[in-house]
């Protein structure tokens, strides 16, 4: 492997000491002079018409400064998805109806947090309670109450306004959802399903379901907005994953020019997909700061974070798969139902992404995919790490295990037979410039001790605790075409040869600042501490695609690499001019330019000085940029799955060993082995951290995490009742990067931050089956479900 100075090495995080000492400033830590505090009044009903709102008593309270209701801003509408087919359906505060428990009804600003909190109770709201729907069956009934009666005019279709073509979107013309609770639909057909079924030796149809889960970023959602009436400038501190996206939407709805809206840097205390959307509290902070000409802070309580930010979509997947006796998958017919709650959220995206994360893994010639997202009166659902991948991978690989077992095959052989390979072109045109699936399957299988453990545990064996192994595969995009479609980077070379990188990306914990600094330091051949990073500020940093869909390494990383190369080339050019030597004959290391094969050298300090004198004072600044998908100028169709999706896919195989306690039904994850093909790890330590974090989240989704809802009310909106993995649950976690050297990637790198959640779910379910012979098709695999299945199994055996 190439011998790099920083790349691929275990470089400590650049933001480590700042965070270890408590000095790092997060949004919740921002305090500004003259600041006031906001709180939100929320709907106690899942579905109701607002008959009247009377804020007079609240307003009469000394210290209460403003009560904002939807009546003041009825025209404002925005949403994460905003296309001609799916026009924005969210309003910052309810105007006519509330559609879930927690829906925003009014915002109060007061001199203190406590006064604002107390004022909420003084706002009188009269509701007319409407019938509500919570399940797929209820919401899809022909006579179900319609949650969004009006078809909204598409006013501010964000992406197309930006000049990006959306040809695909116009094909279907208009909304897919007139007067029904269907919020989005995706349909894809490849090959011929009927002829595929005819070729199959074994066909199975099974249904799998996943509940809603919560992101649980440790920093609660918060926003501080500060408007200066003299300059007309609005400063924003937001706990966010994409500063340019938030600026774009907020500037648009506030009708402010982009140069007057600035998102300033704060560290983000975790996000996992849950901090992409523009939230009502952010709009309210911005709007009310402008109204009151004072800084306004909103900080959500943990209960509000659980219930009113976003959750992972509960999804039902029904799959019919046909397979030949030799293990070749000949047909797959997939039906997906996703519940996006009271508003569309990312419904159309998850409908599309369940396809996007299904088809890159196995080559299936005859394939039909139909997804529907529905409105219900449940909390809103949005992106969560993997965004559809955990749910669809759970379904596909659970069923594959069932099929393989029925045919008497080992699932890993079936996987190897059908898995995509490097050089494959996917049906939408995406090219797999790298694909380590085969190697990952073999590696994960070997590491977990597959052949030693698999099938060892038999139902008739005595002994209370039984062990089994399971495996699953996953795929994830490395960024895609979405607003603002590009990442740019600027590198300033200072007079002494040290450098500062300006990037619009945001540090959420994923290590972006560290890996980007490594890329710059590698190209410029500097020590790490000779490169500083300035990020997360819309005013001083060049535009960036944001930290979602795992584009950080590929998209932002390439932009930074190009900027560093540009700066290096300029240094070598001016050094060449000064020395009268061609730039190709020069090398750069530690702020010194050397003529190859000689001891003639020149400091970068002298070179920059020379460049400034020769070049009319222009200092050396490198610039670089990279687009979400270089070969396309349009975003893919969410409804038809057409168009190019991503420049490179990350892949992983995950194998686990579990122990099932047949007396209590408890499943303990003993070992988890992930072989993740991230192209090439830019930073070993950070890649390990991402994989371990993903695997832990996958462990939670497989075994314990579940948003428990009763008539739309979340019953476990706290960390005591919402079970997520704690330190004592940590398994022996092994991971091996599979180095496939993605040709598009900077130094061969691609996705690592999201993929390896998704393989854990089916791996655990398959391991439970391997241990005790019961198939759990609905996550999480709680002791209750295991016990019930074991009892059913026993009854069946006894009756034989």
């Amino acid at each position, binding site marked *: 492997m190439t011998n790099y100075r920083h790349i691929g090495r275990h470089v400590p995080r650049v933001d480590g000491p700042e965070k270890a000492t408590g000095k790092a400033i997060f949004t919740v830590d921002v305090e500004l002079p003259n600041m006031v505090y906001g709180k939100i009044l929320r709907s106690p009903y899942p579905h109701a018409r607002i008959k009247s709102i009377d804020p007079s008593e609240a307003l009469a309270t000394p210290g209460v400064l403003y009560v904002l209701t939807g009546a003041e801003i009825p025209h404002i509408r925005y949403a994460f998805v905003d296309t001609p087919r799916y026009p924005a359906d969210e309003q910052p505060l309810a105007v006519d109806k509330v559609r879930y428990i927690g829906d925003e009804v009014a915002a109060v600003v007061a001199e203190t947090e406590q006064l604002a909190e107390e004022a909420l109770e003084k706002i009188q709201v009269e509701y007319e309670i409407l019938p509500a729907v919570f399940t797929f069956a209820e919401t899809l009934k022909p006579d179900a109450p319609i949650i969004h009666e009006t078809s909204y005019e598409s006013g501010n279709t964000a992406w197309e306004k930006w000049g990006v073509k959306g040809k695909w979107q116009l094909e279907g013309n208009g909304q897919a959802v007139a007067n029904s609770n269907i919020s989005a639909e995706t349909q894809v057909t490849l090959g011929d399903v009927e002829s595929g079924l005819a070729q199959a030796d074994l066909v199975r149809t099974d249904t799998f379901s996943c509940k809603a889960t919560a992101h649980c970023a440790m920093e609660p959602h918060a926003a501080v907005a500060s408007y200066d009436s003299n300059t007309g400038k609005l400063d924003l501190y937001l706990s966010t994953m994409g500063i340019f996206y938030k600026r774009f939407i907020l500037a648009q709805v506030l009708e402010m020019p982009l140069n007057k809206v600035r998102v300033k840097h704060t560290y983000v205390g975790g996000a996992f997909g849950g901090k992409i959307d523009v939230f009502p509290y952010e709009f309210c902070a911005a709007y009310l700061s402008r109204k009151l000409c004072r800084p306004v802070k909103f900080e959500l309580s943990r209960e509000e974070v659980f219930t009113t930010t976003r959750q992972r979509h509960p999804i039902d997947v029904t799959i019919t798969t046909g397979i030949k006796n030799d293990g070749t998958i000949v047909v797959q017919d997939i039906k997906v139902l996703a519940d996006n709650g009271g508003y569309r959220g990312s419904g159309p995206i998850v409908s599309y992404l369940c396809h996007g994360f299904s088809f890159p893994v196995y080559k299936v010639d005859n394939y039909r995919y139909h997804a529907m997202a529905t409105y219900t009166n449940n909390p809103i659902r949005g992106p969560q790490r993997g965004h559809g991948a955990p749910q669809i991978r759970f379904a596909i690989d659970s069923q594959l295990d069932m099929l393989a077992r029925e045919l008497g095959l080992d699932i890993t052989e079936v996987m190897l037979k059908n898995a995509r390979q490097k050089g494959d072109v996917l049906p939408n045109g995406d090219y797999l410039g790298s694909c380590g699936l085969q190697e990952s399957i073999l590696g994960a299988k070997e590491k977990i001790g597959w052949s030693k453990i698999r099938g060892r545990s038999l139902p008739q064996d005595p002994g209370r605790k039984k062990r089994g192994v399971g495996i699953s595969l996953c795929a994830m995009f490395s960024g895609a075409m979405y607003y603002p479609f590009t990442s740019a980077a600027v590198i300033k070379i200072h007079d002494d040869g040290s450098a500062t990188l300006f990037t619009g990306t945001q540090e959420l914990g994923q290590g972006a600042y560290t890996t980007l600094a490594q890329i710059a330091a590698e190209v410029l051949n500097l020590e790490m501490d000779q490169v500083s990073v300035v990020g997360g500020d819309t005013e001083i940093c060049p535009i960036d695609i944001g930290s979602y869909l795992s584009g950080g390494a590929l998209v932002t990383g390439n932009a930074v690499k190009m900027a560093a190369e540009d700066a290096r080339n300029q240094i070598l050019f001016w050094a060449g001019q000064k020395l009268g030597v061609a730039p190709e004959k020069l090398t750069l290391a530690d702020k010194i330019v050397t003529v190859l094969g000689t001891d003639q050298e020149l400091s970068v300090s002298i070179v920059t000085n020379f460049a400034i004198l020769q070049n009319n004072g222009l200092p050396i600044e490198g610039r670089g940029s990279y687009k979400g998908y270089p070969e396309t100028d349009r975003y893919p169709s969410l409804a038809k799955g057409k168009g190019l999706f991503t420049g490179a896919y990350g892949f992983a195989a995950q194998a686990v060993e579990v122990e099932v306690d047949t007396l209590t039904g408890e499943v303990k994850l003993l070992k988890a082995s992930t072989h993740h093909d991230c192209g090439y790890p830019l930073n070993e330590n950070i890649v390990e951290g991402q994989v371990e974090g*993903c695997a832990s989240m996958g462990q939670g989704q497989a075994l314990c995490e579940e948003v428990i809802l009763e008539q739309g009310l979340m019953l476990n909106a706290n960390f005591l009742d919402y079970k997520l993995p704690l330190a004592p649950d940590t398994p022996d976690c092994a991971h091996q990067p599979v180095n496939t050297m993605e040709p598009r990637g900077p130094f061969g790198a691609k996705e690592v931050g999201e993929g390896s959640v998704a393989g854990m779910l089916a791996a655990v379910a398959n391991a439970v089956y391997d241990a005790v012979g019961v198939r759990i098709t609905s996550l999480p695999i709680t002791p209750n479900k295991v016990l019930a299945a074991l009892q059913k199994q026993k009854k069946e055996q006894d009756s034989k």
Partner: protein
Amino acid sequence: MSNQPVNLTPQKLVPLEVAVNNRTYLLEIKPNETLLELLRNRLKLTGTKKGCDQGECGCCTVLIDDEPASSCLVLALSTHGRKITTVEALEENGQLHWLQEAFVKHGAIQCGFCTSGMLLVAKSLFERNNSPSRQEIMEAIAGNICRCTGYEKIIEAIWQATNPLGNNTGAQLPKGGELFD
């Protein structure tokens, strides 16, 4: 909007004497003020984080007389005459504490929001047990949620820093669950 005077302290204030990070403060506080509010809002020690305000996440962990406690559940009044240690006290003269060094070195920090709580629990664990096992480390931090790391690197950092075999000899941390061969 009302023009009446705004009463910012509706409750009667009570005196408090408390030592925070080796300095004794004389304060007047609201009787219902939590230790977390006192630290963050009054003393501006924002290294202590509010993750849930319900005593369940561990982000607000501080040491009270060297014992870890969720400062969101502690009434500031009850710390009268006691000694509080927050993350800000770990670094001395611009030098990171050895536990902080270990957290940075071993990748135990991602978003950083749980870090101060984790560090203080680790410090208190070490003072009771200067060579904790993997199991003892896992149990000590069981009340501190970390969503980023999956805990492995935090456990490793604490073990490497506290175990005399750790850093110097390059000994391997025993793994959790059932061991890989």
